[in-house]
């Protein structure tokens, strides 16, 4: 069975031939498009390492069939920095030591970008922790992660206010 799907990946429209409907978005990105920034942790939706944005929403790419997402707009960790300038969430993770081994970090960062866009956490660390609970970090960098998300959220909302003024 040959299926052709259209995806926009980090701003670039792509036409992709799939020879097998079993391919997940995660395996498509990593194995076929060689965008290996998105990580495979559990491959079962339990760890969040594979988090990407699909049509602006963070989801687990390991539990999403690529063929079912025909037409989707996808953003991965490779698409966050602009013109060599790190995204504010990436900068905040560095500033607050929001990682140790780094394996969960792309998923954490994409999840944080999604969380900030959703706008339900505000400046409440408890809400940030709750809304980041789908991303496990076995090094235990949670404290730095929470601080990084709060700082990036503040910076991005400040930037939005300046833009609106």
């Amino acid at each position, binding site marked *: *069975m040959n*299926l052709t799907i259209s995806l926009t990946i980090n701003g670039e429209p792509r036409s992709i031939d799939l020879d*097998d*409907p*079993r391919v*997940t978005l995660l395996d498509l990105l990593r194995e076929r498009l060689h965008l290996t920034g998105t990580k495979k942790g559990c*491959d*079962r*939706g339990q760890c*969040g390492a594979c*988090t990407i944005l699909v049509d602006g*929403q*963070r*989801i*687990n790419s*390991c*539990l*999403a*069939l690529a*063929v*079912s997402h*025909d037409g989707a707009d996808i953003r991965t960790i490779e698409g966050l920095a602009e013109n060599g300038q790190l995204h504010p969430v990436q900068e905040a993770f560095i500033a607050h030591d929001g990682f140790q081994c780094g394996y969960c970090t792309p998923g954490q960062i994409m*999840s944080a970008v*999604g*969380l900030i866009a*959703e706008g*339900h956490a505000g400046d*409440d660390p*408890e*809400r940030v*922790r*709750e*809304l*980041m*609970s*789908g*991303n496990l970090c076995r090094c235990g960098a949670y404290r730095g992660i929470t601080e990084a998300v709060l700082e990036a959220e503040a910076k991005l909302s400040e930037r939005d206010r300046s833009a609106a003024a």
Partner: protein
Amino acid sequence: MNRFDYIRPKNVAEAVAAASEPGSAYLAAGTNLLDLMKGGVSRPERLVDVTHLPGLDRIETLADGAMRIGALVKNSELAYDEAFSARFPAVAEALLSGASAQLRNAATVGGNLLQRTRCAYFYDTASACNKRAPGSGCDAIGGENHGHAVLGWSEHCIATHPSDFCVPLTALGAIVKIEGKDGRRDVPITDFYLLPGDTPDRENVLSPGEMIVGVRLPAEAAGFAANQRYLKVRERTSYAFAVVSAAAALRIEDGTIAEARLALGGVAARPWRAIEAEAALAGAPASRASFEKAAEAAFADARPSGDNAYKIALGKRIVTRALAMAASGTPEVMPALPASPFAPLSEGVIHV
């Protein structure tokens, strides 16, 4: 994962026709189905992808105040819909206490209703499981079963239904809207799920090819908006299925309970409506003594299916506290930790 044919129907009628063929399964977000397929637990020969079907992604308020939710509405979209959460706050709270933000962004209303049990023996294809392989036995009985059912179980299956969303839906009398080869029908959620009996592989009343197209919350259910909560004990603070949960909704007039709704999660193969407890509460004062009496009534028929007698004692305390929380009023803003026993209690709720 086994190989399968992929079908993307253009409308519900095409979907129903395709899924009526033996070996078919509906694919929505796939957050549960793909997990099951990766483990070899489900092996559908064809997937009928409903995610592109038109008209099933709306949240509508009907003229009489009822709300109709399309089967493809995402869990997060529904939970954060202001018109919906104002009328049915315990449903929003239950949704936000379930899974993770990523899964809630993907998972659909219809998929949530049809998710399978998280019994580890159902997931382990090397174990006997009457639900996965009818007639093979049940390794959960006599196995690791501290999380299993205490109500409505049989000697063939002691699994529980894992949904949070369905618990307040059950308390509030939601209607499941179904479409199949023979047309449309509405089934109250309290009649939708089947107890295991000697056919635990039959989990609900859907016939082959029938699909859930939506859920309706009747107008009268909105009468409980001021006093309703969902409370859920988990083995960690967040991102875990319920050990025991309860949805409580009250209509209080001058300190007296005019009408009560109560349903339990994590205790049975279906979200469990506690009718006897509701009857015990009707006309009673909104007091701790009434809530404790209702909790006893809710678990009067409960019995352990293994190492889980603690769930009966725990369940009674959760019911008592959920009722006390509901009586003290729906919070104005969603708690930071939805449905969590660790969230600060509002004033007037006695610690139980």
